[in-house]
């Protein structure tokens, strides 16, 4: 279908056992897409965690996803960051590179352009840390592929709204 939209949704939840399983089970059970999902505690004092989900679907499905999420008892707030205007989306990736010589130098040169940092190094390997939008990370990983990329680890998207608005 042509009207598939991609949405970043932020979910503030009570940090209790099983809450992530509820969210994931909801997506799996109702057949919704998960493009990326991240979760971490964000407010220890109030026992709150934040789940960032990137999903896709028709506008009707996106509306359902939000309504179904809101129905879960431990969920406090559901925010559609994509719908509510501009938001900042970032992802972090770690890339392990293997190789010596020209490829090694070329990868370091490209890393500089992408503002990737070397966070681990041996004579024959590097680990790059790079952050940015999903597209930027995709581009960087593609460039690294022929230069000795052996392993990638990505966090998935974390997102936050721009401006003064908050939860």
């Amino acid at each position, binding site marked *: 279908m042509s009207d598939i939209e991609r949405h970043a949704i932020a979910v503030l*939840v*009570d940090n209790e*056992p*099983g809450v992530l*399983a*509820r969210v994931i*089970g909801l997506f799996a*059970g109702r057949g919704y897409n998960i493009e990326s999902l991240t979760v971490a505690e964000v407010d220890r004092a109030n026992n709150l965690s934040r789940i960032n989900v990137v999903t896709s679907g028709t506008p*009707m499905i996106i*509306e*359902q996803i939000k*309504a*179904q999420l*809101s*129905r*879960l*008892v*431990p*969920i*406090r707030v559901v925010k559609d960051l994509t719908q509510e205007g501009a938001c900042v989306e970032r992802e972090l990736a770690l890339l392990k590179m293997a190789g010596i010589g020209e490829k090694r130098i070329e990868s370091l040169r490209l890393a500089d352009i992408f503002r990737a940092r070397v966070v681990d190094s041996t004579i024959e390997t590097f680990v790059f840390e790079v952050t940015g939008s999903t597209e930027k990370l995709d581009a960087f990983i593609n460039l690294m592929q022929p230069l000795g990329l052996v392993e990638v680890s990505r966090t998935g998207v974390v997102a936050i709204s721009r401006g003064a608005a908050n939860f």
Partner: protein
Amino acid sequence: MSAEQMNGAEMVIKALGDQGVDVVFGYPGGAVLPIYDALFQQNHLRHILVRHEQGAVHAAEGYARSTGKVGVVLVTSGPGATNAVTGLTDALMDSVPIVCLTGQVPTHLIGNDAFQEADTTGITRPCTKHNYLVKDVNDLARVLHEAFYVARTGRPGPVVVDLPKDVLFAIGNYRPPEQVEQRKSYRPQTEPDPARIAEAADLIMHAKKPLFYGGGGIINSGPRACKLFGELMDMTGFPVTLTLMGLGAFPASDKRYLGLVGMHGTYESNLAMHDCDVMINVGARFDDRVTGRVSAFSPNSKKIHIDIDPSSINKNVRIDIPVIGDTAKVLEALIGALKARRFAPDRPALAKWWKEIEGWRKRDSLHFDQGDTIIKPQYAIERLHALTADRETFITTEVGQHQMWAAQLFKFEKPFHWMTSGGLGTMGYGLPAAIGVQVAHPDALVVDIAGEASILMNIQEMSTACQYRLPVKIFIVNNQYMGMVRQWQELLHGARYSESYTASLPDFVKLAEAFGAHGLRCTKPSDVDDTIREMIAIPGPVIVDVAVDQAENCFPMIPSGAAHNEMILGPADKRSSGPVSEEGMVLV
């Protein structure tokens, strides 16, 4: 500290008492022995021992739906919990408030594949409104009170509380319900948005072909919502149709009632749905049994949808004016808004609309011909209604043809008197549900309208009925087929009756006697009335085996994947031999 110290099992009993619970449906086992021991040592809480945990949940559903209170279930760990899953799913689909306490292996054994261990919270997560695993006895009181609150508020549903055995033995502090803080994350919206009420009222003001479409949400909201629904009908004079779950929300004898809507709804209901210009959905959820083909569903109407669950809005059908809130509060606000606008229906337009509807009503789509020799199932149910109309009668059903005939032909005048498995379609629901209803209403007549296939799914509960001298009446409309399966095979699968005939059925009269109940059999149309009278007169539980026409199909019917105006009226309808669309074939 005013906190009372006690062990977990005593806390369970105390919490149930503080929640106003007077009866629990359950079955003991190793993990819940401490609770059963605490039960043994008190007198205010009654326990009904079922014969299968599924029966316990359905009984609690029957209790809940006939009283408006929360139904309570107590089962053991492992198989006790897994047996309850069908009942929990049933309660979730039909929005029935249930609190189900499940035993669990002690906390230090969780995850070790211990004897009778199951991941109960994992298994029941998708089939409950919410669930809890209590690992600390000092959380127990709070969790139990919260469980009741979650089960009965908002859109009601089942809640599981999983109780490890060591927690039941541990000593902790009890807190009464009023000391439990409500959690911030669960705040169902009950008050409607006035702006939406205004929009809805404006739309109703100018309706020319309006229709009220009422569902179980009216009944779940309570007697006041039903009363206000009637008031709205008096005020507007609009026609009204009800879903399977909504039967009784408006008196069936009222001229403005068009009958059941949906797959086996009346001709006038379904055509009014299709042709209306303003549809006011009150507490129904546009279930696929109601809408038929969504793309052809009521194509020219503006739709108002009143529901307490925001996720029901725009789920299946695009809504013009959603109104989130408790039905009673919404209806009250809507009536107020209409009065403020000095509402007067567009009488000429409404008269024209009613004339059209009366034309459809004249088709008499529930008509059947009762001859002298074979009992028509519809006749048996119609007579059952006629002979019980003068007394307080509660009806439960199993699932299938008999259920649809009951919904079509039994005229419910009041809410809370009709218990059926709508969303999940659970064969085996009716008998345990009837037991639950009878426990709540000991002096009323409670009849389970059953099929011979469905009744066998939870027939063991006859033993429960007999133990507690619950005089439930099981009225089996026996055609020896899984009738609805047979009907679909006839209409969609070239009359190849694959596995839908039950050979070796038991002798239901002897079966009743084996349980210590009464059995009656009826094979002739002329005996139907006397059999029903005898059934009512017998003070204990009765199984009535009514041998009916094996070939009878349930009409009218909207074939799967068809629109409301494409319904089949009966066997003589030429469309009944027409092919069902490819998309229709894959639908359930």
